[in-house]
């Protein structure tokens, strides 16, 4: 019964998160239609003495034609129709808010990752050496032995017991992750066994 409750709780939370994501997406796309993000672009080729010109106007789709957009009209009277027939008008829409938010999200994730990378490669070994001394550093690296086949079994059994201390848990998870990455690095870069 407790597993059923957990399963339903998980399902409910997933549904909630997905509804939230969907609604924010809808809001984002709806709010994105601010005035400057719609335009009608008319490209008019050279005609008689007039050089070619491109006209832009922030106008809705029903008004997107040569007569509304080309302003001031370079030709007079009966030539207007001939001029407008050559022009090609297209309605375009974009969402500048989406672009801005996406780029800022991307740059912040990239920045965080770079900071973490600098911390892992440069800062942490210096800190560890200062706090624990040189000998203990070597010992902790030796502990990461390859005691196959029992290593994975230990891992599986240990995971089933609960560790009450939160900080311990974080430290333990980080150690395990570092081990995994080291194994991956060995397979890919050193032994060239996977992904060569």
């Amino acid at each position: 019964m407790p597993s059923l409750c957990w399963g339903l709780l998980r399902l409910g939370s997933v549904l909630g998160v997905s509804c939230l994501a969907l609604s924010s997406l809808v809001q984002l796309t709806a709010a994105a239609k601010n005035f400057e993000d719609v335009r009608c672009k008319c490209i008019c080729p050279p005609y008689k003495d007039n050089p070619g010109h491109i006209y832009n106007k922030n106008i809705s789709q029903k008004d997107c034609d040569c007569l509304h957009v080309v302003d001031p009209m370079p030709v007079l009277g009966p030539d207007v129709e001939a001029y407008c027939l050559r022009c090609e008008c297209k309605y375009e829409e974009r969402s500048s808010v989406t672009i801005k938010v996406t780029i800022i999200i991307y740059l912040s994730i990239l920045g965080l990752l770079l900071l973490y990378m600098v911390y892992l490669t440069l800062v942490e070994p210096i800190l560890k050496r200062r706090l624990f001394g040189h000998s203990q550093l070597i010992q902790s690296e030796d502990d990461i032995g390859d005691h196959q086949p029992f290593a994975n079994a230990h891992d599986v059994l240990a995971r089933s017991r609960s560790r009450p201390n939160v900080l311990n848990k974080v430290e333990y998870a980080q150690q395990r992750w570092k081990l995994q990455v080291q194994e991956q690095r060995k397979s890919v870069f050193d032994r060239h066994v996977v992904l060569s």
Partner: protein
Amino acid sequence: MDFLEEPIPGVGTYDDFNTIDWVREKSRDRDRHREITNRSKESTWALIHSVSDAFSGWLLMLLIGLLSGSLAGLIDISAHWMTDLKEGICTEGFWFNHEHCCWNSQQVTFEDRDKCPEWNSWSQLIINMDEGAFAYIVNYFMYVLWALLFAFLAVSLVKVFAPYACGSGIPEIKTILSGFIIRGYLGKWTLIIKTITLVLAVSSGLSLGKEGPLVHVACCCGNILCHCFNKYRENEAKRREVLSAAAAAGVSVAFGAPIGGVLFSLEEVSYYFPLKTLWRSFFAALVAAFTLRSINPFGNSRLVLFYVEFHTPWHLFELVPFILLGIFGGLWGALFIRTNIAWCRKRKTTQLGKYPVIEVLIVTAITAILAFPNEYTRMSTSELISELFNDCGLLDSSKLCDYKNLSNTSKSGELPDRPAGAGVSSAMWQLALTLILKIVITIFTFGMKIPSGLFIPSMAVGAIAGRLLGVGMEQLAYHHRDWTIFNSWCSQGADCITPGLYAMVGAAACLGGVTRMTVSLVVIMFELTGGLEYIVPLMAAAMTSKWVADALGREGIYDAHIRLNGYPFLEAKEEFAHKTLAMDVMKPRRNDPLLTVLTQDSMTVEDVETIISETTYSGFPVVVSRESQRLVGFVLRRDLIISIENARKEQDGVVSTSIIYFTEHSPPVPPYTAPTLKLRNILDLSPFTVTDLTPMEIVVDIFRKLGLRQCLVTHNGRLLGIITKKDVLKHIAQMANQDPDSILFN
């Protein structure tokens, strides 16, 4: 004492780099489903549980589609921005790329549509000049610098955080979907790093694409979201169904082709593809495409950058150049595969593989330095392809559309064939140089330690070749209109030849030659163009290129990489045509020691532990007794280890002299002896057996169709030996005169 009805945690899971047991996983899922259905009749709560269990698959597909679509939108928008960052920056808001910076500008002229005062190139920002030799040098220098910076960041992030994020990902996903386990390959760190570094790699101007990595990203999303649902978290076979659907969603957002995505997953990536997966994949692909469309990365609600809309008809005599393009595609595909595999093998075995970061930097430097002078290599490959696919209208200002306008047409729609102007001739030379550069540099780029895809570079090579041929045909038709072939179809003033169509057909031919896709390629290309009229040329080119490429080399690029890495992938498409028997392949061979077996009721815990530590087999058959060798079942090494460890810790009295019983009922324990350990629940009571005289054709077929890991061999009812999947693969390799020792892993 009867104990532990609930399974010990860890029993039934698999070690890293091992193959799953499809039969066991499928039967476990059926048991679970049967239990839920039976319980649903008891109470309303159980009924709700059974309904939600049935519904969970569809909810999972919806979530996968949403997440893949959003990530693809993020990747597209960021890649566009960072590619343009190499050339300059927008003063209106640094997050706009070149096109969007000049979007609202009123100072764009007809002749020079790219320039607007809001967009400043680096020379303008640094030395305040835009024209001249010094500005050119500053721009060149900044371009190369940004390219190197992006590539360096990409490879460092991959090396430090997620080494599995490099490469394309499709060969490994094929292997995973056939039943192999690579832990961490579809994990959350791989997902994050692959997304971030894919943008960096594409923006650095290297000759690679993002379609293959997008499939990997989508499969990571699928794998991560599986953890929310019990049904998929615990069962490896069900999870692979979800991954097939996620792969379809990945291709769907890469190309804007949902149906093509499903067919790609069916043809290239998946191993087993039941009908239920077909419908679910389609749903996931549609949701992903819809999500991407609502994020609208390209404006105008288009899904892909090179969506073309022309519908000009083609003529029958044009089949000859289309078939020529197919032959070119096949030749290029075979050449590329051979050279790329040779280079990757060199990277794997020699000193070159020890310096991945330096290798990436050198290749990026060479690419950037050679790419900047030529405008067609300087622009991103997707933009190049979209320009090549474009049919020239009167209002296009690109160099490729610089034709001499002789007649006075008032419509800007259908244009007749026109003679080439100076712009077109110089564009042809530049395109020819681009073609050579791309052909050479892609060989060294694919397979480096950054996320790299192959679709866009192949399409670029094909599109350039196609466009060159198309413009050649167009000029031939214009200047020699009196020849018989052109006379009947191309009258004066008619729009006879469309070079954009040749570019499309060329792109399809080259992509088909490299990947050996058939149906999925044609469907993707016609979903890209929206024109049912062009199916016949696309099919002709795709078939020709596949035949030519198959004549020169058996495998596509992904199968070749699987073989290079030695993954245990049993190819499902080829026939096994030799007359060997099961006893020629089984282990132990004639001079080897006898098969290591466990007996059902006479081994102690210590004996079993000795056997486990002395051997490396992943499983042991269990027999009635060593004399009779009558088979009881098969037990896996990992389950044995976990059960024994657990029993030593949890149960009292189990020591090294305790006897292990695999039987239904153990005899009563006499006093003053150690209690027994019952391990019947981890024993597989229905292992597959064949006799020793079974032909290997049938054995290989059984392995393929049922997804077995091992098969026991009996003779006159007595257990004789074992055939594992690795033995089958080595045997196939030996029969094909390849090195059997290249098959690694279990």
